[in-house]
């Protein structure tokens, strides 16, 4: 089982592949060297044969056929690898140390490599390099040299090739196994940790060997990912706890009302009133739920694809215009001051909702004393590289300690408990600001509160024709 896993591992297969590649390389080297050496040997043999021929041709020139014959007789019986053969026109051997040749070989003069049989041997297994001459009168002369040395060399090369192949194979196999086992050990350790994490031990982390190699880097990244997941899980738990709290309370209230209405089957009027209250209560519940979902969605950044170049000035104006009559109706004022054509990369809808939340906040809490008509100012202007949208009122402001806290979800200050609201308004504004790469700043202006939405201005290819009128 363990062996099968080892063999199936990637590192083992890689090593095997390398063994094959190296074996091919070794073969190429050995064959090239062998071939070159053979060539040199062949040249030397040819040179020796030529020297011999030169000597014999001198003998022939001085002593004719007879002289040649006696020299051959003499040389043929000396030990060595030189070969000679002289035949008459009928093909009969006159002198020499060769017993047999392939038939009709002597008919064609020139250099030749051939098999031959020595006297006293049975088979023609020797190889010779030879030159054949035709002499006047139909005589033939062969002068050559035995090639046993070259054959021996070939055998040496073949043997060393096989030996090195075997050595390479063994080394590769063993090396591959060792390497694969080392890698497998690291991977197994990681797998074991991963399995433990999956089993529910979310605080477990992948082991690192401290060698800063690719396995450590992988473990590091996976651990960072696990940290992020852990954080998300914690946030999720917090949100679900909050939802449970925020939805269960009104749901209980809803249920109580319905129960009460059932228990008192008195007049139809009170039933109707109870039903109306139930609808109001469920609408409120739904709006809290919607706000929660929307914040979650905006915060997770999934809405980022709705960010397109859009006219912040127009969004602000449309929004202010929407609320203006309502505020004027209560005796308050809403002044709008926007520089035209300020562009941001954003979502008109989300910006509108953020501004609307700020205006509603200002109208609900931005009057002093509370309940008096509010005076609200909405400004949209450019500040350096930012577009600034500011909604300010003349109310009591917020205690400095609460300025940051009030942006969190569900946070409602004591002073606002009596007014309707979900505690989601500013949380959504801040989420929208962050989605746009901007921020929400709250500041007391004494008197009043200024909520500033700061968004990066859209960088355009060409500068805007005019920044301010």
């Amino acid at each position, binding site marked *: 089982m363990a062996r099968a896993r080892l063999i199936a591992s990637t590192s083992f297969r890689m090593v095997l592949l390398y063994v094959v590649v190296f074996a091919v390389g070794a073969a190429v080297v050995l064959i090239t060297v062998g071939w070159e050496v053979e060539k040199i040997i062949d040249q030397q043999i040819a040179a020796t044969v030529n020297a011999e021929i030169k000597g014999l041709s001198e003998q022939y020139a001085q002593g004719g056929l007879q002289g040649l014959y006696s020299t051959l007789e003499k040389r043929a019986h000396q030990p060595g690898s030189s070969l000679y053969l002289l035949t008459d026109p009928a093909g009969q051997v006159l002198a020499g140390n060769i017993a047999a040749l392939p038939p009709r070989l002597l008919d064609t003069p020139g250099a030749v490599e051939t098999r031959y049989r020595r006297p006293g041997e049975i088979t023609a297994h020797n190889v010779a390099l030879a030159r054949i001459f035709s002499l006047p009168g139909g005589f033939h002369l062969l002068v050559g040299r035995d090639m046993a040395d070259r054959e021996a060399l070939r055998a040496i090369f073949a043997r060393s090739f096989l030996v090195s192949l075997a050595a390479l194979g063994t080394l590769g196999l063993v090396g591959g196994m060792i390497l694969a086992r080392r890698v497998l050990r690291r991977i197994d350790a990681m797998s074991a940790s991963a399995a433990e994490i999956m089993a529910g031990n979310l605080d477990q982390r992948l082991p690192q060997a401290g060698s800063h190699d690719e396995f450590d880097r992988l473990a590091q990244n996976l651990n960072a990912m696990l940290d992020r997941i852990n954080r998300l899980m914690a946030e999720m738990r917090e949100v679900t706890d909050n939802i449970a709290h925020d939805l269960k309370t009104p749901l209980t209230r809803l249920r109580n009302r319905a129960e009460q209405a059932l228990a008192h089957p008195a007049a139809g009027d009170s039933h109707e009133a109870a039903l109306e209250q139930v609808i109001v209560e469920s609408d409120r519940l739904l*709006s809290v739920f919607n706000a929660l979902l929307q914040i979650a969605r905006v915060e997770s950044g999934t809405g980022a694809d709705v960010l397109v170049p859009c006219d912040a000035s127009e969004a602000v104006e449309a929004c202010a215009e929407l609320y203006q009559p309502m505020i004027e109706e209560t005796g308050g004022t809403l002044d709008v001051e926007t520089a035209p054509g300020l562009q941001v990369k954003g979502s008109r*809808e989300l910006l*509108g909702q953020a501004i609307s939340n700020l205006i509603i906040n200002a109208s609900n809490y931005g009057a002093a004393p509370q309940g008096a008509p509010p005076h609200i100012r909405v400004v949209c202007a450019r500040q350096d590289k930012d577009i600034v949208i500011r909604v300010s009122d003349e109310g009591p402001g917020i205690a400095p300690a609460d300025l940051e806290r009030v942006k969190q979800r569900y946070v409602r200050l004591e002073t606002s408990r009596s007014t309707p609201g979900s505690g989601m308004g500013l949380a959504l504004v801040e989420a929208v600001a962050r989605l746009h790469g901007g921020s929400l700043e709250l500041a007391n202006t004494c008197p009043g509160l200024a909520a500033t939405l700061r968004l990066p201005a859209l960088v355009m290819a060409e500068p805007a024709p005019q920044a301010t009128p």
Partner: protein
Amino acid sequence: MPAMRLLVIEDDRETAAFLVKSFREVGHVADSAFNGLDGYALARDGDYDVLIIDRMLPKLDGLSLIGGLREQKIETPILILSALGQVDDRVKGLRAGGDDYLAKPYSFSELLARVEVLMRRRQPAGGDSTALRAGPLVLDRMSRTLSRSGREIALQPREFRLIEYLMKHAGQVVTRTMLLEHVWDYHFDPQTNVIDVHISRLRAKIDKGEDEPCLQTVRGAGYMIRDGAR
């Protein structure tokens, strides 16, 4: 409003039954289907005036269903109902071939008003002409002026868009959200009665000193400009 033939494709049987019953009560004919495939077959073969399609359906999801119908050149107006109410969801729904998009939860009166507007859109209307008429009201879209029985009424730009939308749908109920969507191009819940204040200002300009009010409030639903021609 003549009776409409409607198809409700909604997997929650209780919701579907509620919608069918409510549509019948106001005099329309409504069928229902509980999954995407049945809905597709009915929508393709039946002759409906408006289709009401839930976005998340078993067997074939709402957006694919709409895509399939539009590919078959079935141009019946479609209103998408969805629990997903974010901007990008709405854009996706309309891009898939829907004509209107209503996020859950919704009131039946809102749904009814929107379906009736969709139905009307299907009929060739003289809405493209430069002048809109409804009873004694005449809106000149070129000179952007409104007059009632010859008396000229001065309008703010936003008021002009309000009355234009109302008169385009004269005789039909227009809800507050429809006004917010078409006049301000915002889809969020403004949380207060902002639209009512705009309407009451507009009403003061139109109906002040007149015996017959043109701009009516439809209780629990929205507003309507009386179509005097009928």
